[in-house]
């Protein structure tokens, strides 16, 4: 068979010698490609952190700032609102176990692969796609005096009992907690379900052959495997508790009654925009940052390297 592709035997081979080696080109490309991201993050996240630190030492109304040193700090720590907010965040932390346990149960149920489980899965995750604002509005309807919860109670025959959860301090917090757990069910269920899916079924089978009962299997095989997922869900839930709760509070209670349902994330907004005290709000922001930072460090320790 004759050669149908002529080898282009160039009489002289003179390649261009460029100034940059391949390695340099790669590095240059790397820097250029990463630059926009770096700029965005530094400009809109990094710099504000620095500014927050600076302005926390000042009396600031957004336009002018006067340095008053650590008195902002001392004032803030004497402010009962701060402690109320921190206390509220702390109390709400009690809802986290529920926000983990319930999705875990649901995920286990889904994992059994009953007929139509995929449809169930879509349904369970549907509320996650909805804005917390909308969920808050619905929750407000649910817990209100003329709301759905009371309708149910009346329908069940307890017509003399009526709640007005959002009107009472401690009960409002509980209502908030319940709503929070509800909103987290979707994401955490999905997370745990994926975790269960990555579990090697042959482990379970081996245990069953060894004679282990269902509960035993769950405790000794399933749970340990899910450890990483549970830790991730824990961190995500706590972070949501400290930031995403804002929408729920805004819509359900406005922080009230009084400051009963004001958490850190809402306090910052309230102090800065309702009271105009930017300096103190910046300080609160820093405190929030430190708290989430601690959670982040704890996460890295527990889960190990994220890479």
């Amino acid at each position, binding site marked *: 068979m004759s050669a149908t592709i002529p080898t282009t035997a160039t009489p002289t081979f003179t390649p261009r010698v460029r100034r940059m080696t*391949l390695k340099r080109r*790669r590095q240059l*490309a*790397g820097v250029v490609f*990463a630059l*926009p*991201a770096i700029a*965005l*993050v530094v400009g*809109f*996240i990094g710099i*504000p*952190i620095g*500014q*927050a630190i600076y*302005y926390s030492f000042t009396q600031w109304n*957004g336009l002018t700032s006067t340095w008053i040193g650590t008195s902002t700090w001392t004032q803030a720590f004497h402010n009962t609102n701060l402690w109320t907010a921190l206390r509220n965040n702390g109390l709400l932390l009690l809802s986290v176990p529920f926000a983990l346990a319930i999705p875990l149960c649901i995920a286990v*149920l889904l994992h*059994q692969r009953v007929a139509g*489980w995929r449809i*169930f899965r*879509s*349904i*369970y*995750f*549907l*509320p*996650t*796609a*909805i*804005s*917390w*604002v*909308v969920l808050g*509005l*619905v929750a407000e309807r649910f817990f209100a005096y003329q709301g759905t919860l009371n309708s149910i109670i009346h329908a069940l025959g307890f017509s003399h009992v009526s709640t007005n959860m959002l009107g009472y301090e401690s009960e409002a917090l509980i209502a908030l907690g319940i709503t929070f757990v509800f909103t987290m069910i*979707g994401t955490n269920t*999905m*997370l745990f379900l994926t975790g269960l899916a990555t579990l090697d079924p042959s482990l379970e089978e081996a245990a069953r052959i060894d004679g282990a009962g269902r509960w035993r299997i769950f405790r000794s095989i399933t749970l340990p495997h899910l450890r*990483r*997922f549970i830790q991730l869900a824990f961190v995500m839930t706590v*972070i949501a508790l400290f*930031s995403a709760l804002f*929408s729920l509070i*805004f*819509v359900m209670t406005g922080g009230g009654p009084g400051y009963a349902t004001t958490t*850190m*994330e809402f306090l910052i*907004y309230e102090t*800065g925009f309702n009271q105009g005290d930017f300096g103190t*709000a910046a300080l609160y*922001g*820093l405190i*929030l*940052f430190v708290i*989430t*930072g601690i*959670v*982040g460090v704890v996460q890295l320790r527990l889960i190990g390297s*994220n890479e």
Partner: protein
Amino acid sequence: MPPKRQRKIGRWILFGSMMVVAVIMLYPFWIMIITSLKSESQFLSGGGFSWLSWSTLTSVIPIGQEVLSSTIVCSSSILIILCVGLPAGFAFSKLRFRMSTVVFLVIVSAMMVPLQAILMPEFVNVTKLGLTGGYFGAILVYAALGTPFSVFLFSTYFRGVPDELIEAGIVDGLGYFGVTWRLIVPIAVPAIATVTVLQFIQIWDDLLVGLLFIQNTSERPITVGLAVLSAGRTTSIPALMAGSIVSAVPAMVVYLGFQRYLVKGLTMGIDR
């Protein structure tokens, strides 16, 4: 009881409990639908059925406008997040340069910063830059908040791309920009979809940024519109519920359409 029957009963109990959970999860939708299908007077008095709230929706809430605003803000932010995050993710995973690991860690740890922590300075900065009239300020803030996650996801995804592929492109004659555009972007489609879905839900449903960074009431996104009206406590509740449904639909459609990418995206950090 013979074991087979036992198992069958077990299955039914399982199915039953799942139905119960489904009912609970769908309950908010039920409330929304039921409440919206009343007129205001019917709602206050307690009973009745009416399309009135829906037909007069646009006069109570500037729905069309707000949905448009949400769409503009969402799509612009996501566009920026993708255009910034994909190249950066590629750079950090394949184009090693000095200190790239450190910079990468810094960017990824920025994921942990909640907006409220930097809210005040952010607000002041954006205002001073004159970006609060109009969408641009909010878009930039959303983009900045979504970039760390986007960079993280893309870099994790690209780490699975074999180096040989890139080298083949180089020996064939491409420069690094060509490699990114012709080889990397086409195979990054699943990652792009994941980032898009997750960020869409995040941004479309967000309240705080839209509330503070978009000053013109006519440019409000839908979540802000609903929240503000609800706080006013003078709005017709059925209308509010109707508006909520309108707000919820796009996010749900996006979620249902891209379900499989969502699962992949949520767990991409874990398996590694």
